[in-house]
């Protein structure tokens, strides 16, 4: 196990392994996303309250899920990097951040699109949406901090520490925003909560969630290979790649 772990930490080995893994993530992801999209948009019955408008949850919910998952994954990788001085973990955290931020943005954008017919406005200070907005700021902070350093290794460590500080604060922020929200909107029920789901609605949603996760894995692995190449650009093994690998 340790040997394998160590081997995986070596950039050339990782680079090749990751290259082989990508199709295993990407192809099922494409199939599941296709099935989920068709199923969610065409096959699943319309919601009795929201009509076809609810179908945006097939994008909104999985992206919200991955937005949070991405931050936690990034923070875990950051902790591994800081504790065991594993450079690959820093590369993973760096690869994760923009993808997670993109999903957070997607979640906000779809929430806003959903909000227009439901609330009549593009933005409502709904608790979950506000938490997501703060999460986006946290992502941007990590990305901006890493980018601000001239020395990449130093930027990695600083961004890693910030990601850990962020993950400790997320539950507190979430709690405070929920608390704030319940106080200021006592009467309205948050309409962004998922409508009462029938089984076939839920099935397609799960398909989409799994598809999104695999897509996330594929994109992060792809980006991670790029990060490894960028970080190892002086190394000898890269010159041996001759563009095939």
């Amino acid at each position, binding site marked *: 196990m340790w040997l394998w772990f160590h081997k995986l930490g070596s950039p050339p080995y990782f680079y090749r392994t990751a290259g082989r893994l990508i199709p295993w993530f990407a192809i099922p992801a494409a199939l599941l996303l296709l099935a989920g999209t068709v199923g969610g948009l065409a096959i699943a019955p319309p919601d009795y309250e929201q009509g076809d408008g609810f179908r945006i949850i097939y994008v909104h919910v999985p992206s919200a899920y991955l937005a949070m998952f991405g931050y936690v994954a990034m923070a875990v990788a950051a902790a591994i990097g800081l504790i065991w001085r594993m450079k690959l973990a820093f590369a993973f955290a760096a690869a994760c951040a923009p993808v997670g931020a993109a999903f957070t943005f997607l979640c906000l954008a779809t929430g806003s699109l959903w909000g227009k017919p439901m609330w009549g406005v593009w933005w409502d200070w709904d608790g979950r949406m506000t938490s997501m907005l703060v999460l986006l700021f946290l992502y941007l902070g990590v990305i901006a901090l890493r980018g601000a350093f*001239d*020395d*990449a*290794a130093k930027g990695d460590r600083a961004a890693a520490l910030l990601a850990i500080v962020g993950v400790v604060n997320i539950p507190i922020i979430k709690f405070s925003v929920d608390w704030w929200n319940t106080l200021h909107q006592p009467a309205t029920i948050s309409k962004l909560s998922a409508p009462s789901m029938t089984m076939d609605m839920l099935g397609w949603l799960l398909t989409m969630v799994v598809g999104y996760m695999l897509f996330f894995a594929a994109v992060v692995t792809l980006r991670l290979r790029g990060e490894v190449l960028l*970080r190892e650009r*002086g190394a000898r093994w890269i010159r041996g790649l001759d563009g095939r690998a």
Partner: protein
Amino acid sequence: MLELKDVAVARSERVLFDGLSLTLAAGDLATVVGPNGAGKTSLLRVVAGLSRAHAGRLHWRGRAIDEGDPVYGRERLYLGHQPGLKSDLSVSENLRFLLQLQGAGFDQGTVAACLAPLGLAGAEHRPVRALSAGQRRRVALARMRLSGCLLWLLDEPFTNLDVDGQALVAGWLDEHLAAGGMAMVASHAPLGTRHPGRRLQVELGA
């Protein structure tokens, strides 16, 4: 006492040198020489504990040096390019703080006696802001002498010093080594020390 085993030093992920091993015992002086960019400052920062070695191990008194090691922190003194003085505080306030930070005592008489040969007699209560670069360097060197540290790590200690100042510091180094101290000094200029103890030369970028 101080042992470096197969140390490699990198700056911004670029390895400057590797495989450096050396041992410093009581009375030993190591001079670090090499052209600009060879890694003299980086090496001293690694030995001081400000940066991590890219590879290899560092030991003090036979034990690996931890991050924030209190024993090593008490016995090692590092003097870098910046003297570490607050310009709004007086010379004596600065010295008192730096000595107490290191866990060393502060005695008005000793401090005055140390400042006198530096040409800073009576300057104890002047703010550091009013001193020249060379005088600030002298204050930092006074702190070095007063710290009671066993290992001195000096990065270009002669910067901004006039000839008299350099001779004085060389004399202090001799005294320190004769008393069983150790020093590692990066310098472009010859140190001019006379102490007959062991001398090592670390040549970087050769």
